[in-house]
């Protein structure tokens, strides 16, 4: 079947198998930031934005993106790099495998919530698992990033 969609801002048209999952489709198209960390829709590593909302690409049929806008980490390099520095500075980067999905959901959170506090951050990111760490450094990096953004806006 044929689908028309936007991937990272570029309109595309592709022939797909009706049973294909979005995660496999995106990886086939070279978006290797999209990862499979579990088989149970639990880890959040495959997070992408569909019409601005974070979704699990492992549970989405590629057929369902017809007419929709998909954004992966490859399409958010600037934002990702800026926040990525904060993650690295806090030592939150360990093996790095969970990172792209985590950053995608952080970006979604920052677009959806205004000045989230620590509780809200933890709740929003509860579906992103990291098997190396205890999430303390990640939380600290987000709080510092929020602070940095605020000072930047004020000046």
């Amino acid at each position, binding site marked *: 079947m044929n689908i028309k969609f936007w991937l990272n801002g570029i309109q595309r048209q592709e022939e797909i198998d009706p*049973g294909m999952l979005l995660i496999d489709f995106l990886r086939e198209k070279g978006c290797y930031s999209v990862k499979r960390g579990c088989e149970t*829709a*639990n880890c959040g590593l495959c997070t992408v934005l569909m019409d601005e909302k974070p*979704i699990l690409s492992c*549970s*989405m049929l590629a057929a*369902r993106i017809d007419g929709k806008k998909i954004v992966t980490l490859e399409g958010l390099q600037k934002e990702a790099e800026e926040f990525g520095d904060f993650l690295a500075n806090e030592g939150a980067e360990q093996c790095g495998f969970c990172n792209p999905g985590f950053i995608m959901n952080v970006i979604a959170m920052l677009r959806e919530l205004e000045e989230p506090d620590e509780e809200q951050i933890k709740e929003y*990111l*509860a579906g*992103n698992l990291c098997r190396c760490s205890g999430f303390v450094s990640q939380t600290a990096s987000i709080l510092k990033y929020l602070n940095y953004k605020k000072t930047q806006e004020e000046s």
Partner: protein
Amino acid sequence: MLKIKSYVKVNSIAEAYELNQKKTACVLGGMVWLKMGNRNISTAIDLSGLGLEGIQETDDEFVIGCMTSLRALETDKRLNEYTQGAIRESVRHIVGVQFRNCATVGGSIWGRYGFSDVLTMFLGMDTWVELYNAGKIPLTEFVNRKKDNDILVNIIVRKQPLRVCYMSQRNTKTDFPVLTLCASLIGNEARTVIGARSARAVIAEDPEHILENFAEKSEEEQKEAIRKFAGYAAEHVSTSGNMRGSKEYRTLLVEVLTRRAWETVGGMKDEY
């Protein structure tokens, strides 16, 4: 693995119903559960082009389209005001935001899953399901129906005066619940729904009328009724063990959560 031979984004519910009469066809919800199974689907029926996402409020009811995401329930101000935040509480522990953006209320209710927070919550209100063929029936009836080839279109919550509290116990954040519980005063009716027992949610009956006229009781009488009913529920609601918790543990939880939830409904505490 899930295999899909053909995919149809239908133009009407009638079309979906017709396609769904074939045993190997399947209506898609959010697919978060479906994709984990081993199934060969001849025709995957997608309702997402029919405008069935969204919550409409009228004077008497909330009409919730079957394709509404759990996240939309969680963030809907009107529904949460009506349920004193219980709707949000019932879904916010389910995996993560990305998951709840995918999972649909129709999928949760249609599946009548044993682990369902959503089913437990909606059984605690005056909820009806609107089926394409069978029409509107109460959720309390639908929950025990055998799965057939009908199409769930809307979930309707009638706006009776409501005091409600939802609670769940989880071994770890974002996991499936070990027990779910919804205590509510629907008008004058006191209802206690218990799910993830580990079987499908049931209403804990009150044949001794322990909670009858709950709102009219004094605080002392309410406390006594709650204590008595929590014990009664633990004795009579059947539970079973699985990898997440034993039968004995679940029965203990029935008593504790029944007490806590009713204390919240009674206004003796106001926290989740």
